[in-house]
């Protein structure tokens, strides 16, 4: 198939960037989206031009490295699919494809389509540890956890931190990410001792990084390749209210990083 790409090119952080058009002829519908970009890049290199920089690692939808705004949708047109797992058969011959980096103040562009997502790492760091004792693991049946709660924790633990929620949100809010991280620990008995302090510290860090607030547009849930539900945001808000009202001191927790 023959395509036309409109790609954001930006040489370095803080530098002006622009959309550059590239014809992409002879693309196989069996290629993944990133393989298509590889092919385009090889042709660019042959011509002595700078290849398009994009983030990727596992290419099997589990690491969260890839992340592209494709035709106005985070990770492109397929639901529950990362950009690396998207295939060119999702497009038609002759299509024009707009490819842009995630846009958020907290995700500055590093180069072309690569953004710096270390704000997410700092939110996780602010959450701190859980005081699960180390040593020999206790018997699996020593702490019974109901199936619905175990599933709920697991659904939220599926977050790969790709940032699609932020990219898709009209407010560039990191609420879904932060809520998933707060919930997957808070739903389990192991996460209870630090639950309140964790909610305070992670929400405060999220705000400090310059993400927007939640308006419940629902775009994040639709964009999430792991299908994380905006129900998690209810859990985050409940925990945050409870933690604030019970006056848990969050100082030493939010002070890190």
């Amino acid at each position, binding site marked *: 198939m023959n395509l036309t790409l*409109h790609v*954001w090119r930006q040489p370095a952080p803080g530098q002006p960037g622009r*959309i550059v058009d590239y014809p992409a002829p002879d693309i196989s519908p069996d290629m993944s989206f990133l393989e298509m970009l590889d092919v385009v890049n090889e042709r660019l290199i042959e011509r002595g031009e700078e290849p398009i920089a994009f983030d990727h690692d596992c290419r099997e939808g589990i690491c969260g490295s890839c992340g592209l*705004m494709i*035709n*106005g*949708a985070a990770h492109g047109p397929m639901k529950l699919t990362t950009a690396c797992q998207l295939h060119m058969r999702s497009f038609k011959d002759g299509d024009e494809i*707009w490819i*842009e980096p995630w*846009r*958020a*103040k*907290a995700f500055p562009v590093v180069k072309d389509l690569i953004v710096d997502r270390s704000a997410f790492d700092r939110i996780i760091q602010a959450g701190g540890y859980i005081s699960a004792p180390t040593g020999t693991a206790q018997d699996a049946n020593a702490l019974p956890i109901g199936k619905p709660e175990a599933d*709920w924790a697991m659904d939220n633990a599926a977050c790969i931190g790709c940032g699609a929620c932020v990219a*898709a949100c*009209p*407010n*560039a*809010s990191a609420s879904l990410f932060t809520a998933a991280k707060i919930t997957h620990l808070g739903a389990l008995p192991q996460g209870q001792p630090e639950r309140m302090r964790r909610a305070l510290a992670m*929400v*405060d860090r*999220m*705000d400090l990084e*310059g*993400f*927007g*607030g*939640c*308006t*419940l*547009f*629902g*775009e994040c*849930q*639709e*964009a999430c390749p792991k299908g994380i*539900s*905006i*129900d998690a*945001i*209810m*859990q*985050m*808000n*409940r925990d*945050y*209210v409870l933690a*604030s*009202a019970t*006056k848990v001191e969050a100082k030493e927790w939010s002070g890190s990083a």
Partner: protein
Amino acid sequence: MRWLLKFWDSTVGKKVVMGVTGIGLMAFLLVHMAGNLQMFLGADAMRRYAELLRTSEELLWVARLGLIGMAVLHIVAALQLTAINAKARPEGYARKVPQVSTLASRTMRLGGILLAAFIVYHLGHLTLGWFHPALVHLQPYGNVIIGFRSPLVVAFYVVAMFFLGLHLFHGAWAGFRTLGLAKRSAEPLQRAFALWFAVIVSAGFALIPIAVYLGILA
């Protein structure tokens, strides 16, 4: 007190304040709408209702100050969150296609400003008499009939109620979610309650100016 200031400083805290005040205003709207519908019971019923509300001047002022307080908190939180959200994406997309967000959710700010303007006009119209040709104290029936003589006023009320419905279609769903009061759901975006609430409240209010315009109430 310090925790309250810190709570208000966070985006979650401000949004929770919006949810609480929004739901409080929703409760007021429901009562206000039901009260207004007594127009269809006639002038005597309306006068008795007006007198009932004025049983105690002190309590009336408690209610009024409560409503004003809620509206102010709601609007201040909305403005501050809007400013925070605008700063969170300094450079936008060349292409961005809304996937599931409703028109209602994307017009909360615009619709909110319209509602604020409407509230000021409405108080000046039927409470304070600034924009009313002949407001008579404790004669609500006649005041409403005369107040809606102008088709322009009727049109403004009906348009405002349409935007109220739109605001509530998102707000009556989002408010409970913001407060974490909704049940976890396989379809969290479905909003049957909000749809019913929005339609009943906005239609209930709009009925009266329309009925006056059509001569059903005279």
